């Protein structure tokens, strides 16, 4: 698993990358009440805003960590946004992206580096 400075996690699953937010990010956000997901099939460029998370405090964007095509979104979050607080590292993934250039993953942190980043 890889981690971004924006507190996203990226897990490679066959030829796609699954993206979610970290436990730390979910704690910082507070209770999540709404999630807006991208359309499947959308071509995104790194740093495009693709997901909006609304918590009791504010709205936050999740940016595309890499270039690629959105191939699946987690529609269960639409009905149960609270999952983002309950299981941010597991069930509450946001989208799967098919990378245009897998080497873009190389710049991201491993878990030890991420833990050091948030410490």
């Amino acid at each position, binding site marked *: 698993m890889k981690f971004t400075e924006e507190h996203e996690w990226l897990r490679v699953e066959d030829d796609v990358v699954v993206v979610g937010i970290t436990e730390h990010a979910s704690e910082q956000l*507070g*209770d999540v*009440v*709404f999630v*807006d997901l991208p359309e499947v099939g959308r071509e995104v460029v790194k740093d495009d805003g693709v997901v*909006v998370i*609304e918590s*009791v*405090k*504010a*709205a936050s964007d999740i940016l595309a960590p890499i270039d690629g095509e959105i191939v699946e979104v987690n529609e269960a979050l*639409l009905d149960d*946004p609270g999952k983002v607080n309950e299981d941010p590292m597991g069930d509450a993934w946001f989208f799967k992206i098919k990378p245009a250039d897998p080497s873009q993953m190389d710049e991201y942190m491993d878990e030890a580096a991420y833990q050091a980043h948030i410490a």
Partner: protein
Amino acid sequence: MSDLQITPLNALHRELGAKMVPFAGYDMPVQYPMGVMKEHLHCRAKAGLFDVSHMGQVILRAPGGYAAVAEAMEALVPVDLLGLGLMRQRYGMFTNDTGGLLDDLMLANRGDHMFVVVNAACKGADLAHMRAGLPGVTVEEITDRALLALQGPAAEAVLEAMVPGVAAMRFMDVGIFESGFGDLWISRSGYTGEDGFEISVPEAEVEPLARALLAHEDVEPIGLGARDSLRLEAGLCLYGHDIDTGTTPVEASLSWAIQKVRRAGGTRAGGFPGAERVLKELHEGASRARVGLRPEGRAPMREGTPLFADATGGEAVGHVTSGAFGPTIEAPMSMGYVSQGLASEGTELYGEVRGKRLPVRVAKLPFTPATFKR
């Protein structure tokens, strides 16, 4: 940040694990470990304790007693203060020369004087406004007392056990009670839509009192986050957001706070700043109104969201002034201003969120029924 002021409960908030934020110049708890959503629900189910010591407490005295203060104060506030009963409290507002709102406040008749509570952010300006506008009245800011609010269905039982007599109070009664925590100035009022009390307590006694209240299993500390969602569900205005110097009481749908005696034809009609405009609007209506708004989807429409009459095109017909998710109604909710013709309940409008126009309906306020003990 070093110039932030603190309340006498600052150390207790930290001990309780609060996340602290700057608010109106004070270092205040926005939430405790329970989190905003659960704090909100707990307050509606049991009882919540709020530190509102940042608010301004002011005593107004004149040689002629309460009536003299009330008469002077009616020149600044468009409500019936001479007619306010002994040990009763009333909601009011300071208006400016164009009928805009300088602040909203609570005013109490305490026999030989008037006690008022004003918003923290407006405190300095309000004091100056009163000192300049109330000839013959002594304006004393009370700086040696803290202010707590205990709100929720369990508040009465919890407080009665510690301060016998408070259960007999009705909504908007005020009382002075001797207690083990010094003399308490208590009003049966609040900012949540729940039954409850606001308690002014000597600064040295506030921490023991707060600890004693929190020791009750029904009481949890509540931060500013849940305070905001509770007041919004209750349809109550937040100064600086839903009301400000650019909104009149009539536009703000606060006409109910202006009693007949201060309106055209009343024996003490007008006589406050901006009266000409406010009285005219009371008679003819204002061009816009503050309304409740219920988005049809799950996306909250936050402060600043523009509102439109149609799904595409056209000019904005209003905007959102407060918006959040309502934990009790389990849905997003907003308040905002819309053109008068679009203010009736059920009117379908569109709020533009992140470039998309999403349907929203004008809804009745409050979103949750008030449970005041009248």
